[in-house]
Structure formats: structure tokens, C-alpha cells
């Protein structure tokens, strides 16, 4: 298409946009038909974000080098007390220190 837009990528983005919109309108469509949500379905839906997002950091922690392990562990401690932005900035500082200061 051009330097900026590759056809396969644009199609992938638009497909992602469509499924995202379906999640945003889906609960409304469901609730106006179902009236109530089965408790187990609600428990499963509630678990989705934590379950999906955990798969995106846990293997990185287990298989990463010591620089990555230390940074993620520190981020967990910091994240329990401070906002996400503070956590990210602190993690960035820690990884830079470990890599450039300690040569990990």
C-alpha cells in the first residue's frame, strides 16, 4: 500500500478493532436478552484479564536473565504500593542500572 501502511497489518488491525468493538457492545446485547448472568460465567469473565495478562509476564520472569528477574521482582514490590507509572519508571531505572552499572 505505502511505506506507512502494509495491507496485512491494516487488515489485522481492523479485525482487532472489530472484535474489540464486539466486546464493548456484547455485554449490553447479552444483558438485554439474558437479564441475569450465570454466576460461573461471571466468575470466568472476571478472571479473564488477570489470567491473560499473567501469561505475558510470568514466563519472562522464569526464563529471563538475572537482570530481568530482579527487575520484575522489584516491580511487584513497588507495584503493590505505588501507581503503575511509578512502577514502570522505577523498573526502567533498575534494569538500566543492572545492565549498564553491574553488567548483568
Amino acid at each position: 500500500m505505502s511505506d506507512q501502511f502494509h495491507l496485512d497489518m491494516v487488515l489485522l488491525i481492523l479485525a482487532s478493532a472489530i472484535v474489540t468493538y464486539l466486546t464493548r457492545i456484547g455485554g449490553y446485547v447479552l444483558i438485554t436478552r439474558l437479564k441475569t448472568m450465570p454466576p460461573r460465567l461471571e466468575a470466568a469473565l472476571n478472571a479473564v484479564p488477570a489470567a491473560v495478562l499473567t501469561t505475558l509476564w510470568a514466563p519472562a520472569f522464569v526464563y529471563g536473565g538475572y537482570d530481568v528477574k530482579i527487575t520484575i521482582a522489584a516491580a511487584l514490590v513497588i507495584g503493590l504500593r505505588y501507581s503503575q507509572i511509578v512502577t514502570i519508571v522505577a523498573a526502567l531505572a533498575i534494569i538500566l542500572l543492572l545492565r549498564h552499572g553491574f553488567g548483568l
Partner: protein
Amino acid sequence: MNSREFLLGVRGGLPVLASAPFGLLFGALATANGVTFGEASLMSATIYAGASQIVGIELFGQHVPAWLVVLSVFAVNFRHILYSAALAPFVREFGVLQRALTFFLLTDPQFAESLRHYEKTKSLTFTWYLGCGTLIYGQWLIMTMVGAYFGQLIGDPHALGLDVLLPVYFLGLVIGFRKRSRFLPIVGTSAIASTLALKLVGSPWHVSIGAIAGVAVAALLPVRTTPDQNGAQPKAVVE
């Protein structure tokens, strides 16, 4: 359209500006992972769901089949189903097109600020919602563009520590869900299942396998008799 109500909505969205760095982060990560400036902007303009967009660029880099990328985006955004169900009583008076736009703009902070506004004023008009949504959407798109522009100038992501930002970002999101019921069994199961699956089955299947294991645990554990107060409450950041 009542312009005062619209501006009140814009003002209602102001706390969300605290999450503006996520737009920058997304834009920078996108271009650092080989996504172009135009594509990154298109993602923010049409998908408009930060965490799933970052999952998307993470998976593009691993040469994952397209359907699995779309499925992963869907999985990360699945929580919106709860918000949209919760919003049903508020949109009764809205027209069909207004409803369609309302749900397009339904992000975590939009949901949080809208409900907070309703608690305070006992009303939630489409105009207010649109004002709030315009601010959140606008900052997300502009911050993406700024981040993507500067991301193109980044040389070595490893030397700058950018590779560790994604896991830390996702860990931070997970921490934000810690008050939900069954949090530890779900996260523990997903962590173990995805780590084993990465070794035994390989990437990107560990994402789906770990996620399904965690969700299954949540569905199979005994149902609580008291409703979960924190269940559908979103965090006040763009995810």
C-alpha cells in the same frame, strides 16, 4: 447539543490525563517493534484499548498466526463485556447511533469516570459522556503519535531496557486486579501453566493455554454466595 454539559464531561475526563504516558509508551513500543507510525496511529484510532494493543505488538514480533493475534486481543478486551452490561440501564434514553458511539468509547477510565459522575449527580447524559470520551480518545491518539514519532528514533531497545517494560507493564495491570475474588489461584494457575506451556508447547500457545487454565480455575471453584464487590470495578487508568 448543550456545550456546557459537553465541557463538564471534558472536565470529568481530566483525571485520566494521568495515564497519558501509556499512550507514549504504546507508540514508542510499537515503532520499536517494527510497527510504522501510521499503523500505530491506526491501532489507537480504531482498536482504542491500550493493553490489548500492547499485547498485539508483542505478538506481531513473534510471528504468531493472524487469527491468534486477533483472538488474544479479544481475550484481553473481554472484560469490556462486563462494563457494557453494567452500562445498559444508562443508555436507555440514547438514540441508536448515540448508543453505538457510547460503546465504541467504552474504555476502563471512561467507565470509571462515568459511574463516578453518576454517583455524584444522579445523571449521565450522552453529551457529558461524549465530552469525557472526546478528551480520553484525543489524548490517547495524540500521545500514541508522539510516542511513535520518537520511537522511530530509538536505536537498541535492549540497551534502553525497553524489552523489560512489557512484562513489567502487564505485571502492573495484574496487580491492579488483586482485590478481585480468587485472584491468587487464578494468577498462580496462569503463571505455572503458561511457563510450562512455553517450554512444552512453545510460543505463542503458552498465552492461550495459561489464560484458559486460569479462567477454568475461576469457573470451577465454588461460587460465592455474596456478590463480589470489586468484581466489575475498573481501575482508573487506560489499560
